[in-house]
């Protein structure tokens, strides 16, 4: 399959890239790892007039804790996230997702920023970022702004970036004591999209109470879903209260809005969400120091 024709530029600086996006309007599209965009071009589901390749811009691929956050440069490859000791030890929920995105070849090129800003409800990082309460740094003609994850995923392939903005950094609240998270994905085969995916992040306090909880859902709606009702229900309840956890799972499944497709019926997918939520919640609590 041959992509449609397009112009191509690979600027070396962010300002040059933003200038190109601003001057070419809606027809210009950023390409990072290309692992979602190139397949779309081949299927001719996307036909930008200009591709702005940001791979040669330096400084967009760090993973570091700084101030009160973990900062992940938008161009960081998924394979580098997967190999990061800092992420494995302190942000296991991100590590979980990095292992199940695409396949090893996709992860060598695919970027965290691309997985987030592509806006595909089947992508795994959006749910993780919703659960973590992350924020995204967008840099554009008007300067830099920060967008909360919960305000970012608007619709299928639609995120809160303006056409002249580039996602440059992902900021995750710094890991605190007694916190833990988990991402679980049911997939039919490696590199398939999720039948459903669930991200749960918790912080426990004395007595095993959930002080904070974030839940994100993958592939069960037009965009990644933050399961707010389920979160609210579980706050202040103890992690070992199994009836409360059953209700948590039921509420999250209710908040899911799946479609019947080749991966299963809507009703089946809700069941999958319920089971994954209770499993991911227990694993997150275990990682947060709640003993089983």
């Amino acid at each position, binding site marked *: 399959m041959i992509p449609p024709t397009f112009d191509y530029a690979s600027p070396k600086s962010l300002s040059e890239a933003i200038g190109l996006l601003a001057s070419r309007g809606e027809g210009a599209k950023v390409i990072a790892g290309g692992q979602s965009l*190139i397949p779309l071009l081949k299927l001719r589901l996307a036909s930008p007039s200009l591709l702005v390749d940001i791979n040669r811009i330096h400084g967009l691929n760090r993973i570091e804790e700084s101030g009160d956050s973990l900062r992940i440069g938008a161009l960081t490859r998924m394979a580098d996230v997967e190999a990061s000791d800092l992420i494995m030890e302190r942000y296991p929920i991100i590590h979980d997702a990095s292992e199940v995105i695409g396949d090893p070849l996709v992860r060598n090129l695919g970027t965290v920023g691309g997985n987030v800003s592509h806006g595909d409800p089947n992508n795994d990082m959006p749910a993780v970022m919703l659960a973590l309460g992350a924020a995204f740094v967008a840099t554009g003609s008007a300067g830099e702004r920060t967008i909360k994850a919960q305000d970012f995923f608007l619709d299928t392939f639609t995120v809160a970036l303006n056409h002249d903005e580039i996602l440059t950094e992902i900021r995750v609240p710094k890991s605190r004591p007694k916190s833990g998270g988990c991402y679980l994905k049911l997939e039919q085969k490696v590199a398939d999209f999720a039948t459903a995916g669930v991200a749960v992040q918790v912080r426990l306090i004395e007595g095993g109470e959930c002080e904070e909880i974030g839940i994100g859902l993958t592939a069960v709606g037009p965009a990644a879903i933050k399961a707010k009702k389920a979160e609210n229900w579980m706050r202040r309840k103890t992690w070992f209260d199994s009836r409360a956890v059953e209700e948590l799972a039921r509420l999250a499944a209710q908040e899911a809005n799946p479609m019947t497709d080749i991966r299963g019926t809507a009703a089946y997918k809700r069941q999958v969400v319920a089971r994954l939520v209770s499993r991911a919640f227990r694993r997150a609590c275990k990682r947060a120091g709640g003993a089983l």
Partner: protein
Amino acid sequence: MPSSLAGRIPITVTVNGAKRAAEVEPRLLLVHFLREDLGLTGTHVGCDTSNCSACAVIMDGKVVKACTVLAVQAEGRDILTVEGLAKEDTLHPIQEAFLAKHGLQCGYCTPGMLMSAYALLKANSHPTEDDIRRGISGNICRCTGYAQIIESVQQAARNKK
């Protein structure tokens, strides 16, 4: 630097150790550049939808799908294809292992399997079976059921010692 707002773009790519220069359309995929411009047809087009990895090549040390990279993105980069594995008439130890352990039947996926195995063994010279299964999890084979491929990679790891 490949930047153009119209027409073809000059690129220079190191392929199997040799610098190759060409002018290409931005939409040209790396796999078509290798096969059609350079005549290196060892790299196969399998699914053409980024699923099967028959087109796997090594780019700057990392295994990637040549059908999911633009040729212009390979500007200045170092590419290793299956043709670059053997030295003259001597097969690469990974190729020897696939031969010895019957790691192929129709052979269509083999170039991609070899490149994924190459990347895996570069990063991990003593892989467990699980490491190997994960390492080739992006490569689809429709003949072997993978058993002999896994044995081939295990044999290749022993060959390298």
